[in-house]
């Protein structure tokens, strides 16, 4: 575990050494800020529902951009060989990189806390859904980071890793909106697979174990697939 924390620290620092962190966070704040506040005053309602509604889509874009380099770059440069021959297990490496990604998402969310604070001055803000929304956002972020890690472990090309990661995240986000393509018998199962569906529940302030289990299982499946993909390489 200590080794995982060391790796996490290093990966997290790396984001802020290179321009990635600043670019990703700026774009994230611009996009969410713009779409949220352009419609906010029409509704005349003191809540963050629009902000949270948009989050799965922006995350589908941005998180794969954050995670694409985690394994691809190491494989491309060859530094993975040096890392793996140090006294660490693969679980340490995987966990370290995953935690660094999740921490990064959490950091990116911090500036958006300005929105509920501002709104609280303007009207009666219900803090329950806001707290639920942020918890959901971190869970959603963790799930997408795991998916992005998996995409990154498939290839040494970062652009391919980004596109594959984005495709999977988008599919997870939009699948419950495309239910009419599927046979009736499968509707329940496929609806359950949608990340957006579970995220909406949490961001309403309803913390249901089914939704939490959903996100945790996406994390688990993502990390386990990464393990399988990397094990195949050596």
């Amino acid at each position, binding site marked *: 575990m200590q*080794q995982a924390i*060391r*790796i996490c620290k*290093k990966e997290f620092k*790396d984001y802020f*050494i*290179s321009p990635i962190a600043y670019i990703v966070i700026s774009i994230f704040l611009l996009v969410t800020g713009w779409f949220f506040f352009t419609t906010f005053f029409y509704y005349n309602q003191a809540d963050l529902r629009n902000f949270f509604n948009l989050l799965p889509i922006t995350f589908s874009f941005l998180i794969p951009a954050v995670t694409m380099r985690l394994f691809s770059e190491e494989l491309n*440069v*060859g*530094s993975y*060989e*040096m890392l*793996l*021959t*140090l*006294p*660490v*297990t693969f679980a340490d490496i995987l966990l370290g990189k995953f935690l660094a990604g999740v921490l990064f998402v959490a950091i990116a969310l911090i500036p958006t806390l300005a929105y509920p604070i501002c709104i609280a001055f303007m009207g009666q803000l219900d803090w329950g859904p806001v707290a639920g929304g942020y918890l959901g956002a971190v869970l959603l972020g963790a799930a997408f980071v795991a998916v992005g890690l998996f995409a990154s472990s498939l290839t040494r090309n970062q652009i391919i890793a980004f596109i594959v990661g984005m495709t999977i995240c988008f599919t997870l986000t939009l699948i419950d909106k495309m239910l009419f393509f599927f046979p009736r018998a499968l509707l329940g199962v496929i609806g359950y697979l949608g990340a957006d569906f579970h995220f909406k529940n949490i961001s309403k302030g309803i913390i249901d174990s089914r939704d939490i289990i959903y996100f945790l299982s996406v994390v688990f499946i993502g990390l386990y697939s990464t393990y399988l993909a990397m094990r195949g390489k*050596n």
Partner: protein
Amino acid sequence: MIHVENLTKYYNDFCAVDQISFDIKKGEIIGLLGPNGAGKTTTLRMLTGYFMPSSGTIRIKDYLLDEHLLEIKKLIGYLPESAPLYHSMLVFDYLDYVAGIRGMDKNQRISRIRQLVNLCGLDEIMHRSINELSKGLNQRVGLAHAMMTDPEILILDEPTSGLDPNQIVEIRNIIRKIGKEKTVILSTHILSEVEATCDRVVIINKGKIVADDIMENIKQSAGQKYFIHLDLLNADFQDVNEQFSRIEGVEKIQKIQEAQNGNLSIRLTCESPVDLRETIYQTIKQTSWVLIEFHQETKTLETVFRELTKED
């Protein structure tokens, strides 16, 4: 120290390493030699636990590789081919990170990094970014990475590739120094490097071991053929040919060149268990030729290597 038995590695259908076995004692410097694609890197990668063998066992000290991987990794310092380091980090940050993962506390780290800076000559580049370094400097940082905890076993994959001649000599001296107490395995296709640094040579070709012995024995093992070089004045090739072909053991007489001043260069290929130099000298003495040069070409590792690894 290291015991390898029937080690085999397949990449899909391609057999990169084919049932090799060897033993390495503590304090030996082993040169792993072979042409490109012979399986050197694959062998080293299996020894360090980066690749899983398709079959066979590796035992290091009392640890079996597939059961105590973490313990084995702690014993080994490994420098992969061309030292792939993290590009965006500073040299100091990188070494500090490695020291941390190697489990050193803060004070230990600083003093150990100081030592390595002196040993590998890194003092001027500690605060430069790794992607700005030249190939040779990068290689030295890689060497510092491998030697971080003063490991008992040092595995170096082509440690001197890309270095200038001065740096090569420096790195060889470092390896020799370490090799007094530690076990060192280095792979290379530069033969003079093995001659300059190693006690024992393992030659690999197409995934198989073709020779494994101390340097002296390997040189002798490739048959009893040797060459004698002669420069004669006042001699005629026809005549020389006639005289030398009478000596038993002289296989072939070649004229290398005939200079204008009547200087005749010839090369004798000898195959004989006894030294023919005396007989040759006696033969020359009986004639009116003037001997200006007479030497035996010593058998280099190069010739042995070519004989052992040439295509059938």
